[in-house]
């Protein structure tokens, strides 16, 4: 579209792996990679065949130092992911090779790509629609397998298909309204009744509600569930934290481009990303409320999606415990009764009445099986017993969620108009709004402010 620089990035995830890929994209992808590549066969920059694998060596273009043995493939635009010329170099896994190749490329005037820049180019060059581009962005910042899967599904267009089919239903409804608006009472036409419209609208609202509900799960998958661990000193908060972190150490990921709060720990629990808040507090004083004071604790609880309240099975419920329990009354809470290996003293009737049985979990953190039951309890609590996490039509994007909500709200307003038997030309306005909102998700409706959204989310510079 506009004369672009040639960019490069390591395309494979960091960490130990059998293979690493460096991707170069831009008008000079081949020209700038060529000085690094020493093919085994006698091929040149001119007679290289696109989409063929070439075996060879990569050397540093200045020092001539051997970097690695590689496979190289050239994809000529527009038949590539970005629609630009693309070169991919497959080398040995591990960070050393890919990093050295990157460094070598930089000496050729190739710029290191920003996060999501390949996708940005693919989008700008018309290769991806907005939903797909957003899915790729989500993929890049996906924290866990489950959210990774949803992003992939979205890339394949499951959400788009669902939205498209809803839009078609809506279009049929609109058409029926238009017919009765368009023709005067003098023409003998059969038109849809208010009852018929109400029924069809109700069905659409149901479908929208379902998708919006999936957004809740989607948000969890996207952002991680914000969790606070709370309890008296010595109840075992640090052990819980360490057990959770140790168990997940290998899959705690660094998300590029996000600044990590020093006192947050991210972990992955059966595919659900969790963010443990204010873990510093736990480590330092063991007593969050004492350290923070009542007001700040309250604020912290406010922000949390989930509270894990720890109690000691070997002591009675204290006044402080009850105070904390009152504070988190309206929160999604798991009450963990730890130290079941000791002589039990705590009785369930010591707890406030509103505590439900299924919120309670007895375990011993000394015992490996305790952690399993904890994970199970958390999973079912987060998804409220429903296995939504595996649905393909999942909404993970805030923009999509908002558009769905607008569509639902408009249809509900339309339903009110239908109940009052208002003239259809008024009610039609609500249906049109709903239609447009859905259109925004799949890019069928283009609003002028889309450009602001794109520029803020895809970091398109000057």
């Amino acid at each position, binding site marked *: *579209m506009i004369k672009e620089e040639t960019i490069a990035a390591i395309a494979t995830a960091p960490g130990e792996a059998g293979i690493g890929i460096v991707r170069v994209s831009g008008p000079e992808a081949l020209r700038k990679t060529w000085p690094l590549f020493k093919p085994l066969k006698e091929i040149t920059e001119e007679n290289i065949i696109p989409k063929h694998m070439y075996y060879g060596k990569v050397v540093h273009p200045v020092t001539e130092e051997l970097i690695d043995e590689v496979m190289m493939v050239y994809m000529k635009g527009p038949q590539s992911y970005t629609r630009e010329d693309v070169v991919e170099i497959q080398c040995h896994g591990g960070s050393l090779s890919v990093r050295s190749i990157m460094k070598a490329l930089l000496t050729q005037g190739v710029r290191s790509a920003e996060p999501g820049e390949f996708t940005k180019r693919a989008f700008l060059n018309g290769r991806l629609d907005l939903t797909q581009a957003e899915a790729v962005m989500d993929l890049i910042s996906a924290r866990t397998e489950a959210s990774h899967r949803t992003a992939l599904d979205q890339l394949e267009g499951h959400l788009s298909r669902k939205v498209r089919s809803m839009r078609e239903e809506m279009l049929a409804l609109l058409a029926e309204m*238009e017919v009765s608006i368009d023709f*005067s009472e003098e023409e003998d036409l059969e038109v849809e009744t208010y009852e018929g419209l109400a029924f069809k609208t109700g069905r659409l609202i149901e479908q929208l509600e379902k998708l919006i509900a999936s957004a809740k799960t989607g948000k969890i998958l996207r952002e991680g569930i914000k969790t606070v661990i709370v309890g008296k000193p010595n109840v075992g908060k640090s052990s819980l934290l360490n057990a959770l972190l140790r168990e997940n150490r290998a899959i705690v990921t660094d998300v590029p481009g996000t600044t990590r709060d020093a006192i947050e720990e991210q972990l992955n629990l059966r595919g659900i990303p969790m963010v443990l808040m204010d873990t510093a507090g736990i480590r330092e004083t063991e007593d969050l409320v004492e350290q923070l004071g009542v007001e700040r604790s309250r604020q912290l609880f406010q922000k949390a999606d989930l509270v894990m309240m720890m109690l000691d099975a070997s002591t009675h419920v204290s006044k402080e415990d009850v105070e904390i329990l009152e504070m988190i009354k309206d929160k999604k809470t798991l009450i963990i009764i730890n130290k079941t290996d000791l002589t039990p003293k705590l009785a369930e009737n010591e707890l406030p009445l509103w505590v439900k049985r299924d919120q309670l979990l007895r375990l011993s953190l000394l015992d490996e099986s305790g952690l399993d039951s904890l994970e199970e309890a958390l999973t079912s609590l987060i998804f409220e017993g429903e296995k939504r996490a595996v649905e393909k039509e999942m909404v993970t994007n805030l923009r999509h969620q908002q558009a769905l909500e607008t569509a639902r709200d408009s249809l509900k307003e339309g339903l009110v108009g239908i109940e009052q038997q208002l*003239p259809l*030309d*008024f009610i039609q306005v609500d249906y049109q709004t709903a239609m447009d909102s859905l259109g925004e998700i799949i890019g069928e409706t283009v609003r002028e402010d889309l450009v602001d959204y794109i520029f803020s989310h895809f970091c398109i*510079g000057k």
Partner: protein
Amino acid sequence: MRYEAGTYDIIVVGAGHAGCEAGLAAARMGKKTLLLTISLDSVALLACNPSIGGTGKGHLVREVDALGGQMGLIIDETFIQSKMLNTAKGPAVHSLRAQADKWDYQQAMKQVLENQENLDLKQAEVVDLVTDDQKVTGVVTRTGGLYRSKAVVLATGVYLKSKVFMGEVNYESGPSGLFPAQFLSEKLANMNIILRRFKTGTPARVDARTVDFSKMERQDGDEVMTPFSFQHETLDIEQIPCWLSRTTAATKEIIEANIHRSAMYSGEIKSTGVRYCPSIEDKVVKFSDKPTHQFFLEPEGKSTTEMYVQGMSTSLPEEVQLIMYRSMLGLENVRIMRPGYAIEYDCIDPTQLQLSLEMKRWENLFCAGQFNGSSGYEEAAAQGLMAGINAVLKTEGKEPFILDRSEAYIGVLIDDLVTKGTNEPYRMMTSRAEYRLVLRQDNADRRLTEKAWALGLASQERYHAMKDKVEKVETELKRLQNTVLPPEGINPLLEEKGTSTVKTGLSLMDALKRPELHYKDLQSVDPNPVEDLPPSVITQCEVQIKYKGYIDKQMKTVEQFRKMEHRMLPRDIDYHLISGLRIEARQKLTQNQPISLGQASRISGVSPADISVLLVYLEQQRRQKEGAEEKGRGE
């Protein structure tokens, strides 16, 4: 032989509904104008249905009137029946329609033309256009007269190479036995103007003396008639009834047995007809499960026995027409005075036009009406008015006058034609307008008269009437808001109307928000009712109060729409260099040369994804330019 016949600022070719408005607008804007017609006896001819207005079309007439056009004024003087349609629906789709006295209508329009300063009305067939480079500079008539002008408006209606069909019979003819224009098409084709062939049709006219009205349902006009023109507050005209009846099973059989002889079905006619105004053959074929169809019988005038059989246009052979009409309820002994026919004619692909209705490739050549592929008197008048205005502005070197889709049905009409094009004669419908609640027929004056005033088209009288009305509405709205009645004052009325009572006071405005209450209901409880408030003011107040919520919602979408319309596309943009665009989009954009992103988004073949690409492209261009400027300042 050619001779120098005269020099004008503007020449209008054709004095149908488009040509009349174009000629009047140009002359009223002070330009020396020539209006040419193939027959002075067919000025403003209502060649088909003797009626003006209807759903969607009524809005156009109101807008033409608000802009200082003539159609509304003429029909208000010459109608024989008037009816507001769709009153059971919302005020946005209330549509006024009036049956005209066909001869009175023509006569009245001709008189206005004849008395218009700066305007010459002349009978002549235009056979050629005078061009200079890519500019049009005049016309040549069949009798050799060469008229020079700064701009030409083509409003040739259905006359170009027109051909009439009745069954196997067909011959070259204009409508109603008038001469066709045989020569201009070829000249236009030589100018590389893309022509196409459309068709339309009309039913028979029958003799009222041979109709059995006892078998039909009488259709009267409204007791209180609503004028088309904002310059008229009330009307006093004696109305004549129309009649409603149905076809029979026999009608269906006759048509089915003779369908192969219908010119449209025998393959004689290859051109495209109006989907929304189908012939009776079409209706029988397409809705074969419907045993009978309704039809209306409408008088063609006060002093004639000719009646128009609405809903029964046909291209069946004359003898079949007779038995067909005679199979219909009430027409058993009917005598046909003029048979129905289909007519085929040349028109242009309107995507060759700019939004100003000037040709993209031929400067100073403006086009309007059926020549642009539309259908209907009202659509024609609207385009004629706009073409006339823009021809004048062009000669003055001024920016064109363009109404967008959120400003007027006229804007919708022209944008649809020019941007999307049409594959059949284009008819206005309310569903074509996205912002109906804003584009009501009752507020056309408020939307447009100010603009007409600025153009010099609205008279002093018209302008002040509008200002006065706006002020009255504002004052009354304020009064209704400030008049708060105590519960005992308003509750009896609320109870009577079956709506919930109140415990604290209720303003008259809030009372009007309730669907059960109307302005006239308030008279009994209003402590200071305003005397003699014009009905148009009352309507405004009611609509603005009752539907405020919805109108506000629509205004929000209008804002979104305008933002897209105001993202202008630079004239020198090279779409082939924008690699993100699909090939088809590049071609279509290059061909259509849209002026804004909004217009681009309505071109068929340009997808929303292409529009996103353009949006990003424009923004990048803007940022690059800004960056360059900053850099420039820095250095």
